[in-house]
């Protein structure tokens, strides 16, 4: 019990004094996961729309597959990306392994299914009356898309928030393709909140782990609060 209380006190100090190491790790986590979320949004929203509005054979099975991949294990994504970008792998020439970029790629792949699936759900949740009205008003394909997207924007935003949450909280892929590097420059390091918590706990640096954990939770909370605010506007 003493250890936990002591840990919390030390952790509060680390956060309150803006400990440079802790802040750098938190900032890196946000940058990596935010970039991954943007990349995944750029892919999953058009993809989700195409699947949602398209009519083709196997649509149901495809949606089922996407939903199954919601729980894609992070270490499997890590392993897959590792094999692809390792020097002897097909994309080895790009020298991406053990860089923040590698973590961004892995997290993008990781959250694509859930973001695509939630986009499909968001679009199919739009009131059918609105669809019919748009049709009857003779909307062009583009006008139709834009208006439906507008209607579904909050639900899509929710998909983005869920994607970001999954990205910033995963540890398996980040450690496999990032390597948990603490370099002297910010941009070359690959230590994130989750990989650092894993390491610091194993090294017995409990206060640092708690501090990092508090920040991770605060980020998740902050994102959700922001989303809720937007939704209530």
């Amino acid at each position, binding site marked *: 019990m003493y250890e936990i209380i002591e840990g919390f006190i030390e952790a509060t100090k680390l956060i309150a004094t803006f400990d440079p190491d802790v802040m750098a790790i938190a900032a890196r986590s946000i*940058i*990596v996961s935010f*970039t*991954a979320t*943007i*990349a995944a949004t*750029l*892919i999953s929203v058009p993809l989700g729309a195409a699947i949602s509005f398209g009519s083709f054979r196997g649509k149901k099975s495809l949606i089922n597959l996407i939903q199954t991949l919601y729980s894609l294990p992070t270490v499997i994504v890590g392993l897959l990306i590792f094999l*692809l*970008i*390792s*020097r*002897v792998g097909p*994309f*080895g*020439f*790009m*020298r*991406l*392994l*053990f*860089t*923040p*970029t*590698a973590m*961004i*790629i892995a997290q*993008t*792949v990781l959250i694509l299914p859930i973001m695509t699936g939630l986009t499909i759900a968001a679009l199919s949740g739009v009131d059918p009356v609105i669809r019919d009205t748009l049709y009857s008003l003779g909307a062009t394909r583009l006008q139709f898309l834009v208006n439906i997207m507008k209607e579904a924007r909050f639900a899509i935003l929710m998909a983005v928030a869920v994607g970001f949450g999954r990205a910033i909280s995963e540890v398996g892929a980040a450690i496999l393709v990032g*390597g*948990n*590097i*603490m*370099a*002297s*420059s910010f*941009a*070359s390091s690959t230590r994130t909140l989750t990989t650092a918590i894993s390491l610091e706990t*194993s*090294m*017995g640096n409990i206060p640092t782990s708690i501090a990092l954990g508090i920040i991770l939770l605060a980020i998740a909370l902050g994102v959700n609060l922001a989303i809720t605010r937007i939704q209530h506007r």
Partner: protein
Amino acid sequence: MVALLLICGCTGTTTDPTPAEKQQLRIATTTSLDDTKLLNHLSSIFEKQYNAEVLVISAGTGKALEYGQRGDVDVLMVHDRAREDVFLADGYGINRRVFAYNFFILIGPEADPAGIKGMEPTKAFATIREKGMTDKNVVFVSRGDASGTHAKEQALWKGAGFNYSTDIQGSGDWYLEAGKGMGETLTMANEKEAYTLSDIGTYLAYKGNLDLVTLVDEGDQLLNVYCAMQINPAKYPDINSTIAKDWVNFMISDDVQKEIASFGVDKYGQPLFYAAQKDWEKIGVTEAEVTDPIA
């Protein structure tokens, strides 16, 4: 997938503005050199001298060799002579230089339920196994991660007359494979009040958080020799071989040998590693391996 990689590659590079003039050196290392902070200490000196950036991937010798074989790093720092020899013979590594050594120790709970204190290493191992089979208080935590320490442990089981995969692995709940680095394994052994094999450096660095004590620390079998080597640029032409060479030569330079010999003395009251240069005979390597800079 290709498109995806390209997209991410582009967005990713914006977060990665490495100054062009700084060279990057990627090192895959055994966990002990990283957990003790020795590598951290030496790389900050190196970074200033060579205007380079050192990226350390701490992984255990087995994984480090794997990264090296795949061409994902420029330099290896490992401690498993037998596998290093294979690695060199296969042409993946070149220019091995030995820079440090210390000893493995067998540590365990102070109560020492197996009663191995002061025994010969292989005798102690055999006793732990025998007692572990019947007494549930006798537990051994293995690295279980194909690291150099794990290799040494397997050699000791073999030396004690056991077949590792049939007599030890899966022979009972007394034998646990952690699958983790040295520091994490020490923490686990501490929680479980178990025995484990550790390099002395990591043990000293973690001792503050541990209740485990040294029980066996004598015997030639416990020697632990660290080397640095380059990944062969003939295998991977775009590897950063100049800076890799600088690093290996740096490790056997007089100044760094002094740094290694004195590292941790102020904090732990004894060195974590010994410099290899003057003791090459004692540790069974050639003089060239500890003194000759790579041309």
